[in-house]
């Protein structure tokens, strides 16, 4: 009980504060955007030569302003936003009025979530394990070679890397489809055919993101493990004759894994920003382009909805990590 009070409660309070402050920050920032969602709608039509004549334009602007509920002071809008939020209503989107925001998110999110969740986990796992091994055996040749390869791979701009992967593995050697989420005409049922098709289309984007992603995890894990391995207590353990495996698992990894897990939590939360460049290059569906379009068009509702979800998710993940922390780190437990 004491543990609950002293450890959990302040963390939960902090969680709530962080969520609240984060959402407010975003709210303020996007209201500062000089983009007028109403004018953007008119601009979109003009862009394609379907200009609306000036008289109609004026009428349209008035109508849209009323419908969008952009009247009232910023405080009124702020409270209205929270009110709607607690009722679970994100409101209608602006640049796609009157389609509700939640519909747009539900359409786009599964693709991103699927792709990124899988990619993040796999690259995290792969990178951390390889990084851990490379860090522990940091004197060996293969570890040094791997480190060098990763070091050069990591800074390659993702757009370029993705494009090269596409050209090589989808065009020159047609192993993978040339972009897209599913093949044309595939029925959207949960049939085996559908699942295989989704995986085939997600494979190349996942691979590209995965390779570059693992590079990052590899490097950080390797550094941490390397430094922990040289810490005093490990040296003493070795001197004391403890088996290598025991040292590895009980001491080194436990200490090294914690920052990695926290970083993983953060990274999972970034899912909501979507993988914008992936979506662009691979023509893969997802929430990144939705968010990007929303920003360009000044669609407050969509932006608020996605960032709110993002903030809540990340904070929750960090909270969970924080709560598991004591299981790993005895020092914290005794505090």
């Amino acid at each position, binding site marked *: 009980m004491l543990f609950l009070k002293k450890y959990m409660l302040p963390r939960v309070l902090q969680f709530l504060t962080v969520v609240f402050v*984060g959402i407010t920050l975003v709210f303020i920032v996007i209201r500062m955007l000089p983009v007028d969602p109403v004018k953007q709608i008119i601009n979109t039509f003009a862009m394609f030569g379907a200009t609306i004549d000036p008289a109609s334009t004026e009428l349209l602007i008035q109508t849209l302003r009323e419908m969008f509920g952009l009247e009232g002071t910023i405080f009124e809008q702020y409270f209205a936003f929270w009110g709607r939020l607690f009722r679970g209503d994100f409101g209608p989107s602006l640049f796609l009025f009157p389609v509700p925001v939640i519909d747009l998110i539900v359409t786009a999110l599964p693709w991103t979530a699927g792709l990124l969740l899988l990619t993040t986990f796999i690259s995290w796992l792969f990178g951390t394990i390889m990084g851990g091994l490379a860090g522990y055996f940091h004197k060996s040749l293969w570890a040094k070679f791997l480190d060098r390869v990763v070091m050069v791979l990591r800074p390659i701009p993702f757009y370029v890397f993705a494009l090269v992967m596409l050209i090589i593995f989808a065009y020159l050697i047609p192993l993978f489809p040339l972009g897209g989420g599913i093949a044309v005409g595939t029925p959207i049922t949960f049939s085996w055919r559908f699942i295989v098709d989704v995986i085939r289309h997600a494979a190349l984007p996942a691979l590209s993101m995965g390779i570059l992603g693992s590079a990052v995890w590899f490097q950080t894990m390797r550094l941490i493990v390397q430094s922990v391995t040289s810490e005093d207590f490990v040296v003493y353990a070795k001197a004391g004759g403890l088996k290598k495996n025991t040292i590895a698992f009980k001491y080194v990894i436990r200490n090294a894994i914690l920052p990695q897990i926290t970083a993983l939590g953060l990274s999972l939360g970034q899912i909501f920003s979507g993988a914008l460049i992936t979506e662009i290059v691979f023509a893969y569906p997802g929430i990144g382009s939705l968010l990007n379009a929303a920003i360009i068009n000044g669609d407050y509702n969509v932006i608020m909805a996605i960032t709110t979800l993002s903030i809540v998710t990340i904070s929750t993940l960090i909270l969970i990590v924080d709560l598991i922390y004591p299981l790993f780190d005895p020092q914290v437990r005794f505090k």
Partner: protein
Amino acid sequence: MKMLKDLLRDGKFKFGFIVLVILVTLSLLSFVSPYDITIWNVGIRDRPPSWDNLLGTNSRGQDVFWEMTFAIRNSLTIAVFAAFFSRIVAVIIGLIAGYSGGKIDKLLMSINDSVLVLPLLPILILVSSLMRGRLDVLSLGLMLGFFGWAWDARVIRSQILKLREKGFTYTAIISGSSTLKLVAKEYLPHVTPLVFATIMNNMSWAVGMEVTLALLGLSDFEMSTLGTMLHWAISYQSMLLGIWWWILTPVTVSIFLFVGLYLLSVSISEYLDPRTRIQRIGTVRQSN
């Protein structure tokens, strides 16, 4: 100077140092560039590397070599600004939070985490849009710096927390040192390796972010950076049209820049950490 000599014994540091010196020299060359980088068609478009144009010309009719010097200069400047600004903030916040504990700690960490949980790319896009295209090198650096301190502040803070528990803190308090002296004398040396390691990391991150933002079209056209150079090259289909010198230049430079920074950071932090310094003596003698 002695420190530099010591550092140079390490192969990693040597390589990184040389790479960075070359890059800085290249960027300084931009000040004596015979070309005005905002003028198009000073040369024939899309020419491969030759003695006239060391790295060929791009689709705007400009010399790629000199374009590169400007790009390196601007990217480095952005990275330095970003890293500098964010280090200062991270160290201050980390130190205060770690040492004070209690309410101040909670408050600072709440603010810290609020920034941490903001979805990075959309907010960057939002803020870039806010600036209405007047994103010059300084403001871009500042903006990136603003997003760079949160994670590292936490790391510094946890390091401080560990140090607090260690013996010498109590010794110092008992022996009557003032708080400021304590912080400066006892903590900073332990925190410095961390700060250095993170500087390089942060610079790499800043350049990476700048490239991403440029590829999304949010950077100033006329400002030549590694990112905008890439963006132009890709938009003008340099890959498919075979103008490989235009696209490979920023990619290769980026790779060398990151590798250089990484090696520098790793070797500096190894050097500053007393334990690993001893280990180094053994390895350094052998690797040369």
